[in-house]
């Protein structure tokens, strides 16, 4: 029995290709397996070549996988493009009407006449996705009755579609069982309590985390790959007393969020690089007015419009330094789909606690992929709320200089302590004041408040031995492949440790210093050109780090990181 299977289906988009991924991952997740998907959408809106990849297994599945165990090619073009990704000994499934594979000594090849079955047996092109799923499911050992039950649940309400899809299951299983030997491809069924596992994308987990945190106002503007957060919330936020506005642009989105936060609500927006670039001025205002709010940035390939459907970790500099004047804020990055839920909750909590904007950096790959995860438990992160004034008019100083730098907040309509929040420099009473003394005091207040957040616990994860030859540091969605690489390196006898800061500003300097002290060499692994976290670490700690960067729009694989680790190890 394999530890896990990496399956890729490649073909024309628009023939239901993307939904093969959806159906398969849902079914696998219902089996209690771990699932991790990966897509590359084509440049065209409709049509164009595309692929979906599903990695599924009983143990932890931390990345999209390296070489493929199974490749299903729907046509020649896609066969040609993807065949090199199939591992030696892997299984090629191809539609013999569309594609003529080259002979291969090392790979197993089986024709699967998808289009012919569709044409001659099912007589309707719709269920091609379910047919493809059925073949794969059969190979992966999904019991046929399980697949049927799944299809009945999924299409039960569509009397027109259910029979077609049941026929697809039947033909798919029958064909596969008759023609494809399932040597070593069967995965187990893992019994699980109903509802204890959910299949979510990163964006869905973030949206749910925001709802769990008490989000009540969301304004956004569509942008790949963040739009589905807004879409999700527009369908659900009203159920918890919230409201969603599609604004005219990103500046308006953040302006509205600022207004709602000023009025006492938890508020957020979500965007990608181009939108974050437009928000820079309003971000500075939020810091100056000390308003709690959350900005989710699903990073995509840059610069500029860049590669909207590809992944990159290129917005860290902008998140940390994108402001005129010294206007600090907190920057967090969740590391996988499950973590998206909890780190989003922490983002709202820190925003409230420190009365500050918080940027949550996700990325295309993390936003869009599906993972089967334990059902999130909101109770694990107690919800925090901003400190409020006691309403005493005389004593009320909106920007009182306090020990931690946080001052009590007044809510319009609630507290009888009106004040004016301004983006001009102001004194403790919120009055405009340009005097050198005031500016100095307030600069310190705003800065030290944020720097204090470094001491929050729970934002650094460390893996591996207490002392190691090589220390890896990574952030955000890169954690999965790096952990997997580390585990593989350990198996090979290399001593590797890993530190993952989930808070990127303020940088957890103590933890980083300690970590770097416990390893001989440090490598920062990140998906950008310039090594943005590496630069940040060097700027704060003045200790040189090595860099392992990928900047071609694709997510790291565990293999990438492993060969880097081995390269460094062999260099000694």
């Amino acid at each position, binding site marked *: 029995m394999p530890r896990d299977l990496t399956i890729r289906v490649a073909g024309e988009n628009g023939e239901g290709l993307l939904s093969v991924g959806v159906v398969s991952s849902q079914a696998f997740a219902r089996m209690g397996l771990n699932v991790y998907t990966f897509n590359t959408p084509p440049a065209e809106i409709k049509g164009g070549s595309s692929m979906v990849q599903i990695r599924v297994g009983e143990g932890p599945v931390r990345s999209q996988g390296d070489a493929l165990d199974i490749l299903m090619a729907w046509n020649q073009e896609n066969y040609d493009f993807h065949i090199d990704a199939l591992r030696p000994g892997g299984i090629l499934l191809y539609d013999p009407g569309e594609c003529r594979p080259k002979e291969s000594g090392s790979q197993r090849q089986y024709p699967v006449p998808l289009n012919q079955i569709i044409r001659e047996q099912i007589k309707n092109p719709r269920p091609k996705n379910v047919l493809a799923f059925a073949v794969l499911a059969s190979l992966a050992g999904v019991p046929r009755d399980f697949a049927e039950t799944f299809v009945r649940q999924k299409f039960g309400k569509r009397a027109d579609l259910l029979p077609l899809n049941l026929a697809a299951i039947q033909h798919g299983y029958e064909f596969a069982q008759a023609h494809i030997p399932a040597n070593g491809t069967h995965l187990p069924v893992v019994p699980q309590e109903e*509802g*204890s*596992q*959910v*299949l*979510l994308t990163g964006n*869905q987990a973030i949206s*749910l985390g925001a*709802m*769990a945190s*008490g989000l*009540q*106002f969301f*304004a956004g503007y569509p942008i790949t790959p963040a739009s589905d957060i807004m879409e999700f919330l527009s369908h*659900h936020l009203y*159920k*918890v*007393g*919230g*409201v969603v*506005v599609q*604004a*005219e*642009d990103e*500046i*308006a*989105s953040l*302006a*509205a*969020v*600022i*207004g*709602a*936060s*000023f*009025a*006492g*609500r938890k*508020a957020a927006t979500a965007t990608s690089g181009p939108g974050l670039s437009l928000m820079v*001025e*309003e971000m500075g*205002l939020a810091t100056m007015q000390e308003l709690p709010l959350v900005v989710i940035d699903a990073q995509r390939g840059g610069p500029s419009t860049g590669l909207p459907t590809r992944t990159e970790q290129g917005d860290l500099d902008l998140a940390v330094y994108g402001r005129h004047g010294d206007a600090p804020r907190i920057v967090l990055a969740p590391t996988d789909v499950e973590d998206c839920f909890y780190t989003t909750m922490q983002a709202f909590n820190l925003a409230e606690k420190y009365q500050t904007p918080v940027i949550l950096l996700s990325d295309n790959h993390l936003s869009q992929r599906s993972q089967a995860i334990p*059902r*999130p438990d*909101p109770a694990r992160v107690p919800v925090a709320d901003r400190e409020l004034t006691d309403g005493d008019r005389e004593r009320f100083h909106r920007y009182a200089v306090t020990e931690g730098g946080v001052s009590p907040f*007044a809510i*319009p*309509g*609630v*507290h*009888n302590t*009106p*004040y*004016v*929040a*301004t*983006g*001009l420099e102001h004194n403790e009473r919120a*009055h*405009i004041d340009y005097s050198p003394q005031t500016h100095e005091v307030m600069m310190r207040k705003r800065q030290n408040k944020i720097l204090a957040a470094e001491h929050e616990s729970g934002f650094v994860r460390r893996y591996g031995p207490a002392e190691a030859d090589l220390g890896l540091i990574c952030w955000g969605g890169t954690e999965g492949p790096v952990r997997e690489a580390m585990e593989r390196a350990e198996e090979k006898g290399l001593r590797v440790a890993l530190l993952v800061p989930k808070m990127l500003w303020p940088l957890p300097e103590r933890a980083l210093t300690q970590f770097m002290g416990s390893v001989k060499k440090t490598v920062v692994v990140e998906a950008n050109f310039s090594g943005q976290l590496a630069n940040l670490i060097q700027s704060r700690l003045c200790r040189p780090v090595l860099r392992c960067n990928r900047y071609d729009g694709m997510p790291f694989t565990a293999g990438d990181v492993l060969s880097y680790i081995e390269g460094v190890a062999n260099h000694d």
Partner: protein
Amino acid sequence: MTDTATAVRKASDYKSENKPTWCPGCGDFGVLSALFKAFAQLDLDPKKIVIVSGIGCSGRLPEFAAGYGLHGVHGRTLPTAMGVKLANPELTVVAVGGDGDGFAIGGGHVPHAVRRNVDITYIVMDNEVYGLTKGQPSPTTPQGMAAVKRSPSMPKMAPRGVPEMPLNMLAMVLAYGGSFIARGFSSLPNQLVDILVQGIRHPGFSFVQALSPCITFYDTYDLWKGVVEQLPADWNPQDRVRAFDLALNEEKFHLGLWHRRDRPPLHEVLGAAHDVPAPERRAALERVMDAFA
């Protein structure tokens, strides 16, 4: 509902402790005091007022008033005010700003606030110039040399006259589908008070162009006093096309309620943020998650 009779608050109750920093004689003083009187007539509780402004001389207004204020960045008053209103529809939200703030850098937000019919009152203090930055032409500065002749210090930017045709804000807001459109003059405070009272009461987006001369960089007092005129006696504020015609072709500044129509405000169509008990919220969240199990 005879507010004037039952009013318990005075205009002076809406003054803040900050002394206005405007130049003596600035038209904005008139707008500020009209706003105080309107608040008093409506007997509004200062803690339930939020005045949102951008940057400009006019944008300083919130600091001189006793309610809550959000003095944001240049040009973003309207989406900001929308956020405030949707967060708590019980607040009286007034947005104020200059002709540049509203129709240059902020001009992209006006159509959307109008079409959404966000229930706020938006006062544009129009002096046909950039006051705070000391005298550049604004989107409403008259075209050509005329402007330069009227005031030697204006416009700094256009030695050979402002090259652009000015924008016509009333025509624009009419085209956007505005539900309340009026024009007042800071030197005719009573009418302005009346307009503001009506505008604040109007359930939806109320647009008020308040002519408010800049005495320092483009002194139009004499000129404007000579050209303001009331809307004709037979004026029908429902008639959008006549209003458009007048807006485009007027040689005088007509004052009064230009247009009014009934449309439900955004917070009624879309809903607004409201408190839901924690257990209910938790249950709703679990139901949403069930769909992904």
